[in-house]
């Protein structure tokens, strides 16, 4: 297929945490709200002249200093983020809003605060730590509303004078939904038998929507959607279609590696992926309920974080994977986990068994480093073997 016009542009945005769009937004006097957890309602950090940036650490190499602070037993994502913060790679941020969600990411953010990694010389800088509901219920919605008021809206208003009214939230939700719809439309093309967008391209575009100011990204994203609509598929024969489920994939080379093995990544279900992170937030403006509560309800009920512990959610997450896999015609599922990530370690174990035994999918269960380059050979071998096993099953006509 012909390369997407802006693919290189989007790829370049992912080469550095402090990308050119962040620099542009900052130069225009906007306030950067950095965050670390997918459970935080993103639109609330995009109010007025604030824009949200999800912290990530592309091209991570050595994480030695972070390893001193957090030992080599913590997940590499948390260490890579801390290392980047210590190096000054997140100095563009005007605040850090962290969630006490998974323990390791919380500790990374706490170390950032204690080491004053981002706040040197910034009088208005603030660190906030939020409690995230552990269950999907109305009690959880109430908690998230209160947490958002106290740890996002209040400090943004008090420190930076951001408008946090219902109108401002509604406007931010509309912008958020617009981005989500664009991603969703791109996602639909992945269902095609001869898809006109690769899983890698989709991953690049999706990740960019988390780590760049959205308002500066929309025009190129719209153009790209239009381009894909009219794109001619190249008729490539993929050996299999897989869905990737698990920890955040900040290194899109992982998706490329899978596709280089001849396997099409037709769907994604990981932290900061498109499911459920890029599902539009449904707002009923005629409802008696305020906009904030409606936004929080979306995050509580749509959230698929493995730390959501009520059994409806535990079973629901596997069913959700099954439903998407079926909708996107996946032949198999890759459950992946960043090494040392506890929540996904357990989710991967139970999920891989349930998807195999209860839903009949072939499943590859793997752990991986934050930066796939350090284990590319091993991962390639695992994926190749998995694809071969799917192919053999197809040839033999056995159970899926």
């Amino acid at each position, binding site marked *: 297929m012909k390369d997407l016009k802006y693919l290189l542009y989007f790829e370049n945005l992912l080469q550095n945490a402090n990308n050119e769009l962040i620099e542009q937004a900052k130069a225009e006097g906007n306030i950067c709200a950095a965050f670390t957890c997918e459970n935080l309602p993103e639109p609330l950090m995009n109010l007025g002249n604030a824009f949200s940036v999800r912290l990530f650490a592309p091209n991570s190499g050595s994480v030695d200093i972070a390893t001193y602070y957090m030992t080599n037993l913590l997940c590499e994502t948390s260490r890579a983020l801390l290392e980047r913060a210590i190096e000054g790679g997140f100095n563009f941020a005007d605040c850090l809003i962290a969630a006490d969600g*998974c323990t390791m990411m919380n500790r990374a953010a706490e170390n950032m605060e*204690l080491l004053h990694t981002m706040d040197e010389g910034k009088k208005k800088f603030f660190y906030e730590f939020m409690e995230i509901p552990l269950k999907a219920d109305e009690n*959880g919605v109430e908690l998230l509303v209160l947490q958002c008021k*106290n740890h996002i809206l209040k400090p943004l208003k008090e420190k930076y004078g951001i408008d946090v009214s219902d109108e401002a939230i509604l406007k931010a939700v509309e912008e958020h939904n617009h981005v989500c719809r664009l991603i969703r439309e791109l996602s639909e093309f992945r269902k095609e038998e001869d898809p006109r967008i690769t899983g890698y391209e989709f991953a690049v575009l999706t990740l960019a929507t988390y780590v760049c100011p959205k308002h500066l990204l929309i025009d190129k994203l719209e153009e790209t959607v239009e381009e894909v609509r009219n794109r001619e598929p190249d008729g490539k024969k993929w050996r299999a279609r897989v869905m990737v489920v698990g920890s955040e994939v900040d290194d899109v080379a992982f998706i490329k590696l899978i596709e280089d093995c001849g396997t099409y990544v037709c769907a994604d279900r990981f932290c900061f992926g498109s499911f459920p992170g890029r599902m539009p937030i449904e707002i009923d403006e005629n409802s008696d309920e305020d906009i904030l509560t409606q936004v929080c309800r979306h995050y509580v009920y749509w959230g698929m974080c493995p730390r959501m512990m009520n*059994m409806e959610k535990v079973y629901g997450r596997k069913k959700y994977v099954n439903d998407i896999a079926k909708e996107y015609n996946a032949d198999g599922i890759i459950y992946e986990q960043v090494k040392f990530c506890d929540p996904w370690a357990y989710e991967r174990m139970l999920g891989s068994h349930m998807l195999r035994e209860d839903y009949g999918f072939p499943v590859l269960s793997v752990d991986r480093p934050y930066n796939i380059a350090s284990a590319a050979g091993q991962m390639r071998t695992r994926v190749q073997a998995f694809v071969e096993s799917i192919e053999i099953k197809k040839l033999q006509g056995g159970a899926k």
Partner: protein
Amino acid sequence: MAFKRMKTIKNPRKRKGEQTLGQLYPTNGKSKVLKRREWRGVKDTLYDYYRWLYIMSILARFISKPRNIKAMFRYRWMANYLAVPHMMDKFTLGLRDEALRITHTAMNFVIYDVAKTMDNIFRGDRRTGNDEEYSRHCVLTDENAMTAFMMGFDETKAILREVPTMFVANLLTQYSTTHYLDVAQEFGLPGDVCPMPEAEAGISIDDDFAVLGCCAVQVNTTCDGSLMGNGVIAHRLEKEYGIPTFQLAAPMRHREDDVQKYAAEDIKAAIKFVEEHAGEKWNWTRYFECAKRVNDATRKRLEWLDVNSTYYPQFVGSVFSLYNDTNYMGNCGRSPEFPPIDKKLLKLVHKGYQRKSMMAPEYRHRCIIWGVQPQYNIHMLYWMMHCWGVVPLTDMLSMVNTRMIAEEDTPENREQAYYDMAWLNENMIMRNRTHGGYKVLVDELWDFCEMMNADMVMMWEHMSCKALDGMHGMFEEQGRERGIHVVWVCHDLCDPRVYTRQAIRDEFSQYMRTVMREEPLDPTIEHIPDENMW
């Protein structure tokens, strides 16, 4: 900043009995137990022997019931209970006078309590006792769960089935969990998660838990691993045994005001769930009776800690921790049998303090034990005292709630009670430090060092405990700034294959020799051939 140095306190009294403890250990490297009983002088040896007989009587009473014999053959982990007397020997090694009596009083009661729990478990267990009527009145709870939400139930019993199956079993014999860890890993769980919830998941996968109860209440206890392991266990309970489960949410940022309502509401939901499944209504009179006992236990714990802040600590070490765990969490005021034991312990503590009783020939350092202890080597705290003269004043797991809860039955207090139960639930042992931000884990440690006049922190670095490891650098830096020795001792909680007992002791000894430039008080126990012992 110069490092703190406490004055060495010499024991003026001559120590009766054995002077060197190393001679009690078998040299063949194969034996599971000590070579012989310790000679502690006539009076203390007789006392120790009498308590040994008492333990044997508990075991005999337990095993005399057919259902418990049946369980012995059904459940793999039951074999560990042959080592109960040996566990007491580990905890009492080298102790005399009040310390010996305190340890026996506390730990013997824990043994009695665990035996009772096991007896109850097998009474209701579908595979052994199968008393269906009894089982209908049982609620399964987690090993690390605060049982506060059961304080208002008369007939319905909280069954902490993971306590005897995993937690205590690993105190008894060091290799008790390895089989279950292997099972969990064969099932697909990585080997780098905390081995405690991993072993519990392994037991469930291996179908080696007793099966009973009308329902189960699980809590996100100490870590992400504990939280996530619940899903694996609940899956089997619900799908295979038809036991409905409820997940009780305890907020992470438990010191914040804006999470308390969330926690209290979930306590209400948990109580409602139990009421529905057990068919019993919540009884406020009983709740407030229990609340009084919770406060009483809190007061006693604070008094013991007060004494430990002096030059003559009395109730210390792993038994201090284990007794507090049992009383604070497993019991949580529900049993009237604990207060008399608390009282007896306090009397012994006061007596020991007045007599200036010491547990070693000299005390060189006052040490706070922080982090999570290796379950299979928890008795090392006594070894530190006997080998190096380092007194373990208290440990992280014992530094729990100090707040008094409402204990009078009034309409306002009934609403407050939900908040109190939630507060207790949030402040379960360990989780009250591993969650809640760095202030409760790091900052408060230095406050305790100040309060208890400690010059040393022995930092258990449980290698799979992400919450603690995540603050490693901060402990190092802040300890140095405050002039407090931070001795890192690594372990893997309940998997001695990763870190042996001797490897753990070596890390401590290395620090004492190279940094402190000290020689052991009792060199015969610097190296102990206990790799194959229970």
